[in-house]
């Protein structure tokens, strides 16, 4: 998902960006759903951030598809929910359900787009360094690092097994074929576990003592903190304004 680039957003330290996205999404989630204008402002903010980072909109749009299963669920809500009914396009649906569907679509999409922008402008390796800077236990970030580092190896191993199965005329047709897949998974687990043992021994022999050496400093200057605070601060202000509008309405 990462797209190399040299925009100011790319250059921001990873932990600043993670906190910025988290703050932004929190502000979005906390916004009352009846204030539709607020969500339009959030979308504009993200569009501005994408333009500033030089991320093409098509790149974002293609990856938003990951939330499709939940969009399907959102479209079911107006029919499932209770409460007063309203008529839309000749169908009688629940008003509350409509609001719920809108709520999920708007907030979910904004959240996905914000996460996509983060992952597009930050290298995964650097992203994990940022997580470590946020005082997440180093064991967790190390597990994540190894998972990421060997993910491609393991997936390639699985593809080779699939090729081998296909070469022997296997094609998964129904549930009975699960026996073969289960056996492949068992073999894959053994290969992963044994590779883990080998990697660990190799690391021990090179002086590993439970900590990874720091190869890349990711210190943030005051200016960078301020720059990364622009997005969440604006979002928080919008969220507050939305609440004020909500209260004056009531």
């Amino acid at each position: 998902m990462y797209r190399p680039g040299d925009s100011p957003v790319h250059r921001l330290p990873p932990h600043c960006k993670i906190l910025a996205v988290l703050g932004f999404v929190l502000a979005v989630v906390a916004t009352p759903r009846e204030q539709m204008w607020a969500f339009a402002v959030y979308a504009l903010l993200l569009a501005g951030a994408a333009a500033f980072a030089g991320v093409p909109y098509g790149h974002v749009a293609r990856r938003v598809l990951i939330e499709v299963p939940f969009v399907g669920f959102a479209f079911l809500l107006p029919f499932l929910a209770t409460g007063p009914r309203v008529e839309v396009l000749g169908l009688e649906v629940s008003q509350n359900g409509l609001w719920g569907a809108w709520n999920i679509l708007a907030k979910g999409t904004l959240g996905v787009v914000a996460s996509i922008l983060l992952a597009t402008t930050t290298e995964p390796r650097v992203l994990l360094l940022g997580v470590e800077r946020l005082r997440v236990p180093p064991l967790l970030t190390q597990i994540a690092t190894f998972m990421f580092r060997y993910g491609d190896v393991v997936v390639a191993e699985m593809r080779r097994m699939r090729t081998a199965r296909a070469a022997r005329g296997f094609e998964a047709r129904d549930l009975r074929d699960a026996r073969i897949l289960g056996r492949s998974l068992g073999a894959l687990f053994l290969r992963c576990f044994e590779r883990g043992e080998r990697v660990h021994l190799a690391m021990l022999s090179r002086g590993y003592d439970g900590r990874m050496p720091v190869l890349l400093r990711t210190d943030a200057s005051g200016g960078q903190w301020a720059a990364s605070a622009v997005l969440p601060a604006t979002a928080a202000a919008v969220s507050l304004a939305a609440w004020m509008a909500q209260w004056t309405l009531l």
Partner: protein
Amino acid sequence: MHVPDGFIDAPVSAVAGVIAAAGIAVSLRGSRRELDDLTAPLAGLTAAFVFAAQMLNFPVAGGTSGHLLGGALAAILVGPFTGVLVVSVVLAVQALIFADGGLTALGVNITIMAVVTAAVGYGVFRLLVRVLPRSRPSATAAAFVAALVSVPASALSFVAFYAVGGTTDVPLSTVVPAMLGVHVLIGLGEALITALTVSSVLAVRPDLVHGARGLSEPLRLVVNEPRRPEEAAS
């Protein structure tokens, strides 16, 4: 299916985050006992395995396909605490690097898909292994039931979060049966793959199935009386 942002309201998401953090903190401590000295590479490779296993789609019925959650499988293979860590890391990486699942919903996702599946799956597995006769088929059956129960349990815990912090009033009486029905079906696929995987690992390296430790007889060193070379020659 990872829960996106905005599905559960902010306060309940925060509570879920606290539950998830507590689960991970307990697991960090507990996992040191599970793998002799818990090593990041070993757990990382197991996480990569779960990640890859989730990409393995199996056909269910009518052209639809399902994929593994992997919580019960990981807990049975490497132990419940390491299982929680491994699946949590997979979920976090998916949210952070692949934008799959909302960042504010990460607590909910970790609680329902890592903590609940690992705890329920491992609990059921150990209970059955203790009750059933000590053999490989019964361990396989135990893995089947454990994985089968873990999926609806995860769905129910999601419904619980939804009942407290859901952003829409959907009557629970329609949600619960629908969620349970769908997830028992999903659970059957999960159970089949989990049982077959555990069974095939048991056949080759029974020492690597954490949940079935103590199931097989410990190996004994048998020393025969050494024979002298002249005796052998005569």
